[in-house]
């Protein structure tokens, strides 16, 4: 199976979501794995697909940020001091629901990396909601608003701190997985500590985001290799094609019908 992998430049929320959507469609059509690791050009709040737009008003620290709704599920993320990845993987048309093997394999590779850096990282294995003063009622009052306040099986945690979470969306023949790694605390989500607060000795690595993103990409690739049981040869891929394709998709994510769909 062909596989593409690349680090992208920081882009707006709309463009990031449009490129990821283009990757999902490309993966479905061409039966290739596509991995993109990226940052955001400005602090942005991304809502999970089913979250209510009105819920963002109750989260005061992020209320003034740009907003985009993801195609993937899960809770809201403040993209400020984080590195994000999108992975599109071909799937059988009869596959249904979440694909836990995918996030488990990727998260295990990240856990291994964090352990090498000296952190007691692991994958979370129990349902959990962390009560915090910043936590606000989420859609339908069932769960926390912010993704990093939630805990579900497979999340990457260091002690009580969640440092990486992922969520998925299926199309007919492929699956998109979004994930975010919390690098440092943000004033737009002050209750969340990132790797910088948990691992002061790694400030050098964390300060160079490009270096960090590249290392994250390599670790995720190892996770994909482990998932597929082979050593995949990655190419940089038709990056420009994704960008061109994404231009047509930005309108979808900008539309009020999408933005305020819940």
């Amino acid at each position: 199976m062909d596989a593409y992998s690349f680090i992208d430049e920081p882009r707006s929320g709309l463009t990031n979501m449009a490129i990821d959507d283009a990757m999902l469609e490309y993966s479905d059509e061409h039966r290739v794995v596509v991995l993109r690791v990226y940052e955001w050009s400005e602090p942005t709040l991304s809502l999970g697909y089913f979250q209510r737009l009105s819920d963002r008003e109750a989260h005061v620290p992020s209320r003034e940020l740009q907003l985009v709704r993801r195609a993937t599920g899960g809770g809201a993320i403040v993209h400020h001091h984080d590195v994000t990845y999108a992975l599109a993987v071909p799937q059988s048309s009869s596959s249904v629901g979440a694909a836990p093997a995918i996030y488990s394999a990727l998260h295990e590779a990240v856990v291994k990396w964090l352990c090498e850096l000296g952190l007691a990282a692991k994958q979370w294995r129990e349902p959990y909601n962390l009560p915090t003063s910043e936590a606000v009622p989420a859609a339908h009052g069932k769960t926390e608003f912010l993704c990093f306040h939630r805990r579900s099986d497979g999340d990457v945690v260091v002690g009580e701190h969640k440092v990486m979470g992922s969520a998925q969306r299926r199309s007919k023949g492929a699956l998109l997985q979004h994930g975010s790694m919390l690098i440092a605390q943000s004033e737009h989500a002050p209750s969340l500590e990132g790797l910088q607060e948990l691992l002061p000795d790694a400030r050098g690595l964390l300060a160079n985001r490009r270096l960090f993103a590249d290392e994250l990409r390599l670790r995720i690739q190892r996770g994909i290799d482990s998932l597929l049981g082979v050593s995949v040869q990655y190419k940089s891929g038709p990056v420009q094609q994704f960008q061109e394709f994404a231009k047509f998709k930005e309108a979808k994510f900008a539309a009020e019908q999408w933005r305020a769909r819940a």
Partner: protein
Amino acid sequence: MKPESLRYNRSHEWVGMTEEGGEQIAVVGISDFAVEQLTDLVYMALPAVGQQVKAGQEFGEVESVKAVSPLYSPVDGEVVAVHSQLADNLEKLGEDPFGDGWIIKVKLAAGATLDGLLDYEAYRKQCAEA
């Protein structure tokens, strides 16, 4: 409805025909296998009455703890009823997937058929091989 009498999408939606008000109506839901695979459903988005649906195209979405998954219509036609209480009672999908867990009812478009859908045996074979 009896699962043995239904037809199935490869993507796990079932359809059964029933007569309501003198018209042939297709009742659509998702199978017990799909409900089990989806695990811990948290949200469901359904179409509006009057919406046109096409076989193989999305008519709704469900979210489990980690994933958003589309629901695909097995038939062409117009949505004439939506199980509107389902979104707040998702446990019905697991308790009675072929009965009270129905999702939409569709008035078939002229010429629409269930041809091309899997019968029960073929569907179960697909699930066993998954």
